Structure formats: C-alpha cells, structure tokens
C-alpha cells in the first residue's frame, strides 16, 4: 500500500450531519427556541446597529423638556419641565469688576469681539417624546436602545471571560487530576466559601471604577460554576473509551484535552455561557445601582434603573418600564433560548 496506488479520491460524498448540524436541526424544530433565538438575534442586531451609530446615535441629545411626557400622555401636567434656575438671583447688583487683578484683562477686547460673533442658538425642547423623556429630556426609548449596547456587551464579554477561565481551569483540574486538581480545587474552595455577593462587593470595592472593571469583576467571581461543571465533564470524558483510545494511539495531552474532549464538553460550556450572559446582564444592574458601573457618558439598563429609582414616586414611570421591559424581554428570550439550546445540544437526546 504505497504511493504507487492510483489516486482514488472519494466516491459520492453524502451530506453527513455532524452533531452540531443535528443540534441545529433539533433547535430548528423547537418553535419556542427559534422565536427566542430571533429575539436574541434582533437584540444583538440592535446592539450592533447602535454601536455602529445607525440607531440611537443622538441618545444623549436633550430633545425634550425634563421628564417630557410620552406621546400617548401628551396632555398630562409635567411639573418637572418647569426649570427654576434662580438665575436672576443677585442680578440687581452690578457684576463685580475684575479688570484690575485679572490675568486675562489684557485680552478682554479680543475676547469680547469673538464672543459677540458666536451666535446663541436657542433650542426648542419638545413637550413630548415617543416614550417619554428622562431627567435631562432625553428620549428613554433611545436610551434603552443605547443601553442595550452596554448591557449586552458587559454580559457577553464577562460571560465569555468567565467561561474561558472556568473552562481552562476546569479542563486542567479534570484532565490532570492529582496535584493540579488539588490546587485548583483549593482555589475554587476559596472563591466559593465566600458568599457570592460579598465576593463581588469585595472586588468592586478595591478596583477602579469603569466598564472594564465590571467585566473583570464579573469574570473573576463568576467562573466557579463553569469550572465545576467543566471539571466534572472532563473527569467523565477522561474515563470514556474514546479518550483512552486516543491515548492508546499516542495522541498528546494537549490533543486529548482540547481536540478530543473539549468539543464533547462544548455543549455544556455553551449552555453555561448563555446562562452567564443572562446572569451578568442582571448583575450589571445591581452594580450600577451601587455606582460601580458604567461611565457617565454611557448608558446601560442598570444606570437607567438606578436613575429611575425615584421616578416612580413622582409619577414618571416610563424610564423604569423602558429599561425594565427591554431587559426582561431580552433575558426571557435568552433564558428560553438557553433551555432550548440545552435540549438541542444534549447528545443524550439523540
């Protein structure tokens, strides 16, 4: 049997579905799953569109009066819109003259001339906005869209990192066992013996504030569950005969860990990933409430809810509803998709 043999390349290549293809087929048959998937994809598309600046680009523009009414409540009285600035306070007095001590005095003239040329444009603020306005008169609908960008981004990246940490550590512990396992279990025990919320707070207290920090905190505290499952998965698969067979044919440790076992544990990892996205989107809200979150020139569902905290009492429910409902909608869809994924990906159900 050597190279002299005529080249004999494949006969008919029948379409042969792999497990992923089969999983996709099963998912396709699941109506709830498909609807959820559509919703999730729609949200992702919305997020990308907003990121690309196609929609909600001007979310930060103050289009309306403070707490502008939603369009369907056009007539309602809006006390908040009347901005009392007390601007006239002290105007009876003559402005104090600084020219004798002012380091800028030499250029007063130039300054005044330039100032005179700059036109003052008065913006007309709308009384109503499609779904109402926030404190600054920004459209809450646009805010909710723009907020999805940060919330989903935080959820996705943090979940991705947590999954990577959990998967790598879990794979190491489950595959190698022994000392490696002992060490990683020790590490795991440390993280799990501190109640989760305390752990988050402890991390949050010491890190600088910002979007990246939220992601880091969530990833650093959220990997434990994934680690545990992946480890169990690896222990299970290490005992499986196909892995023994791979060892028997001389496949390297790396190959066994990542080429052989990883794809077979991937359904577990994928389901965990999607579960953690949901969990982290919810966690972002809490962290934002504690002020540990998103920078001021960005908006997330969490910051919206934190703002909306006092708005219900003054009758301005729309920001609470806009952020709460968008989040609930996405998270519900995502959770249902996770359930469907779990069913579809589970090779047992074949």
């Amino acid at each position: 049997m050597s190279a002299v043999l005529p080249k004999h390349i494949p006969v008919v290549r029948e379409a042969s579905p792999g497990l992923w293809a089969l999983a996709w087929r099963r998912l396709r048959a699941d109506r709830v799953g498909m609807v959820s998937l559509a919703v999730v994809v729609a949200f992702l598309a919305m997020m990308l569109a907003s990121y690309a600046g196609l929609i909600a680009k001007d979310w930060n523009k103050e289009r309306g009066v403070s707490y502008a009414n939603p369009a369907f409540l056009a007539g309602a009285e809006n006390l908040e819109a009347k901005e009392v600035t007390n601007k006239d306070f002290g105007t009876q007095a003559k402005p104090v003259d600084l020219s004798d001590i002012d380091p800028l005095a030499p250029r007063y003239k130039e300054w005044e001339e330039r100032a005179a040329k700059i036109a003052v444009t008065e913006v007309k603020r709308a009384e109503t906005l499609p779904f109402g306005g926030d404190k600054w008169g920004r459209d809450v609908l646009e805010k909710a869209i723009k907020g999805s960008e940060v919330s989903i981004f935080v959820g996705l990246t943090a979940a991705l990192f947590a999954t990577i940490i959990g998967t790598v550590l879990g794979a190491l512990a489950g595959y190698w066992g022994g000392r490696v396992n002992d060490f990683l279990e020790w590490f795991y025990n440390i993280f799990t013996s501190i109640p989760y919320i305390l752990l988050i707070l402890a991390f949050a207290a010491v890190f600088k504030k910002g979007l990246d920090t939220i992601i880091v905190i969530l990833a650093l505290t959220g990997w434990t569950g994934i680690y545990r499952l992946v480890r169990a998965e690896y222990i299970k698969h290490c005992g499986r005969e196909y892995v023994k067979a791979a060892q028997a044919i001389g496949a390297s440790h790396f190959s066994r860990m990542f080429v052989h076992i990883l794809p077979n544990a991937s359904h577990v990892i994928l389901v965990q990933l999607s579960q953690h996205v949901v969990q982290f989107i919810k966690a972002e809200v809490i962290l934002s409430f504690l002020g540990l979150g998103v920078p001021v020139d960005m908006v997330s569902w969490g910051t919206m809810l934190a703002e909306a905290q006092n708005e219900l009492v003054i009758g301005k429910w729309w920001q609470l509803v806009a952020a709460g409902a968008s989040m609930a909608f996405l998270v519900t869809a995502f959770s249902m998709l996770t359930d469907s994924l779990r069913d579809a990906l589970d090779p047992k159900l074949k």
Partner: protein
Amino acid sequence: MHLAVTLLAVAFLAAPAAQASAAVEKKVLRMAFRTAEAGFDPQRIDDRYSVGVCENLFEPLLTYDYLARPVRLVPLVAEAIPEPQEGGTRYTLRIRPGILFADDPVFKGAKRELVAADVEYAIKRFRDPKNRSPYGWIFEHKLVGLDELADAAAKSGRFDYEAKIAGLEVRDRYIISFKLVEPDYNFLYLLAMPNVVPVAREVIEAYGADTHAHPVGTGPYVLKEWVRRSKIVLEKNPNHRGYEIDARWADPADEWDRRALDSLRGKRLPLIDRVEIYPIEDEQPRFLAFLNKEHDLLDETPFSFIHQVLPNGRLSPGLQALGVSAYREEQPEFTYDVFNMNDKVEGRENPVGGYTPERVALRRAMILGHDRDREIGVLRKGQAIPAQSPVPPGVVGYDPAFRASAQDYDPPRAKALLDTFGYVDRDGDGWREQPDGRPLMIEYKYNAGSQESRQLAELWSKSMADVGIRLEAVAVQFVDLLKDKKVGKFVVAGSAWIADYPDAQNFLQLLYGPNSGTSNEAHFRLDAYDRLYLRSASLPDGPERNAVYRELNRLLLAWAPWRLGVHRIFNHLQYPWVKGYKKHPILYTNFKYLDLDVAARAAASR
C-alpha cells in the same frame, strides 16, 4: 430534611424579644436621618448627624438662640457672653453652678456637677492624638501652649492631661479663661460648636474605646438605645434643669416664630419625651416613610421629590390637606468644583493647573461653559441659588451686592475665551486641543456611591462636550475621593462645605495657601490671597474686614481655582402635630424646642 435545616437556622436566630415599653401618652418624635451616624463622642466626630445628636446630649458653653436670625450667640452653660480681652486674645467665662451631668454607672449613684475642668479636659481631648479628632484643627495654632502639648504627646504617645497650659486656665471651680496665640474675633463661635462641649473625664476614661456608645453630658436628653446606623433613641434627661424659650430675638412678623412662641412660651423645655431617629440613606423609603406618617418630620426633602411636595413652589394640595408645613431653609453651605492648581498630577502634566493666562483662561472658560442653570433647574429642582462667592447668605461677611458674572453660564463667552487663548480644534475630531497642539483631556472625579454625584458628573461631561472640551468622568469610592483631593491626585473634583460657624472666614480659609493638602484641596497658592486672608483673620467683624473679604472673593474669581456651585435650599416638612418647629442654620436638630400633639397624631393615623 430541609425542615431540620431551617429549624436549626431558627435556633441561631438571635431574637431580641424585648417588648417595647408601651408608650402611653408619651410624646415620641420619629424622624429619619439621610446619612448614618458615626458615634457620639463629641470630640471624635465631625459629621452633621452625629454632631446633631450630640447637640441634645451635651451642652456647649455658648449656643445660638433658637429663633434669632441672623443667628445670635447666647450663653448656655456659661453665665454670659464674654467680651474679648487683651486685643481679642483672651476670653474668660464662668460656668453656671449646679448644672448636673446625666446619671451614669460611672458616677456610682452620685450627682456629678459640671465644672470648668471638664471644659479644659474636653478641649485638650481635641488634640490628643489618640482621639484622632477630626475637629482637632480648630484648636490648632489657637491656644497658648496647646500645640506644644500635642507635639509632646505625638512623640511620647501619651497626652499629658495634667499639664497646665496658659491657653486653658481654670481659675476656680467654675471659671475658665482661654488665652489665644493671636487675636481671633471668631473664637466664641468655636465655643458654641456642638462638639466643643465639656465631658466628664472619669466617664471617658471608664469607657475607653467605647465612648461613642456612652455619651454622658449635661444636655436635655440621654441616649437610650442605639442600633448603629439604624436606630437612635433619645429620652429626656431627668437631671436636666430645663429651658425656657427666649422670645426676645424672635421676629414677630415671622409666621414660624409666632407659631413657635405660641406653643412653647412659658413651658418648661424639652417637651418631647422620646426621639427616635432612623438613618435611611435611600431617598424613596425615606420620603415614603414620611408620607405614610411613619415619621413626623422629613428633614431635607430629597430634590427628586420636590415637585411632588412643592409643585410650582407651593405645598401640594394633598399635603396641605394633611396640614403639613414646609420650612424652607437656605443653609449656610455651598457646593463647588475644585481645580487642581498644581502643575502635575501623579507625575503627569495637569491641563488645568497653574497660573499662566492660558490655564486661567481654560478654567474660566470651563466655568462659563458649565451649565449651572440646568444644575439648578434639573438636578436641584430649583432648590438652590447660584453662588456668587463661597460665602452663603446668612453668614457674617456675606455681601449681597457681590455679583460674579464670571460664574454665569455663558457658552459663547466660554468658546470665545478658548478661541482667544488658542484652545481650538486643530485635528478636526470635534475636540479642542491645547494651545501647543497637544490633546486636551480633563478628568473629573466623583463619588461612585452617590446618584447625585453621578448626575453632576454627567452635567459636567455634557456641558464640556458642548463647548468642545473632552472631559472624562471617573467614579471613585468616596474614601478614595477624599484622599485623592487631599493629596492632589485629581484634576477636577466636586466638593461641598457647610459652615462650622457663621463667619465667611470659615469658607475663605479653604483657599489659604498654607492649608494646601488639608482643607485647601485646590492647592491654591497666591501670595496676594494669603496676605489678605491673614489680615482678615486679625480683624473684628466690621466694614474693614468685609472689604478684605470682598478682595479675597475677587481674587478667587479672577484666578478661578474653583467653580462656584450653588447654595442649596432645603425644605423640611412637618406634620401639624409637630409644634414649635423652626430650623436653625448652624445647629442641626431642634428636638428640645419641639412639642408634639399626640392626640392629633393618633387621630390622623387612624
């Protein structure tokens, strides 16, 4: 099985099953604090709320009259207001004999009379390094011999309370005389501060580290119960001699004064038997607790709910029907943003620091570009007045004729100023660069834990974007913010100051050069300012000193180490069964002057 687990958990449960004593016909006042207290050792605290509680537990030598406006010093445990002697460097007071401390096991059943030595002891405590007194600074460089004593204690680790110093002279059982290092005509204000109060040395020493929980004073109330950060209960001090309302300084034209006098005149104060205070930091529950009549008072109505309470500036019909009244108070405080005046911040160039015309221009332009109107209109719901100088109305040295147009919101002038000094957008990215072409990026630090701080930061960010300046708001933990401001690790940051005593000096010292790194967070150092400040400190109240104050304020405006914010207006709400209410600008609480119509409350709650 799970049942067993829970049973076990129930067994763990520490159930304080003590039944509340039935408060039959007792006058119990309930209210909330918006911030948690720290403790009640008067020399070891500085927050308004803890100090506010101490106002009721202890008595300073002097105090402020309840009704007089502008505020007026009156003697409390001292017999009279002393006159300055020796050119404003000596003040001698005599304590009224027969004033008793509240009972405490430390006294072993004996009645303990207040004496001059207790005052001496308390003031020394401010400088004992062990106490870490946050108000130690008020007696720094103040009393002859005290600084030396403190320095010695810092070295030896033990404060020598026995040592006699010339600055604190106990002449006999009741007479104490203070000798100042240099003239200070505001010194008596210190003696009226609610934490400059005599304490009994044996009590302090007996309780050691626990003095916060065992405040024993001569005040009209005693601390009955204290669940930290959640409940403070005061009850009448049976040893207290009682007060009477002083009608002399009341303004007969003032509705509040009239009502207070009507309900309090001729009665032996205090009238409230028990005060329950609940620190509630979140606005919604604090507000709703008042609306639900769970509380009798609402101190400082949160700005968010102002339009619910005072739509169009008048009390809402709903609250009116309940008989609620709103007390509008311009507090002697102001908010401001600090520019770091140092050239470098953490080793990097500080774009807003320095005294060159460009940097002055940048700061001034930022001030002009900051939309203070919206700060007041949107964030403060109109419950603030734009500050023209750091000195709030109602404080001695306040000048109503001082009008600072340099602090007004004026974007065209801001842009023009930036253009004039070369802060223009050179690379076309929409943001202005520095005059030498380097990028301009300003960092604003704010308190991560406060929604209000976040909104102020948001406003900064928006306002600066409008004039083309890129500003990045950075959230930091409250603790870190304090530290960063002190050591100059910031570019721009927000601050606020409330009067310790009603004199402009208390505000203007914040820019005094030698105070850099302590109260002078801007690290502002201007010789002209420092010279004028020292001069003002040695002058008694009068036109001459006011002229100096005016000059100080002008320098502040010209060099712009601060953006002046606002003087906030607070609205305090009371149900009609709370009688005798009036808010004092310096003193935080007024329980001892209140009365409660228990029957009316019972009727309303039904």
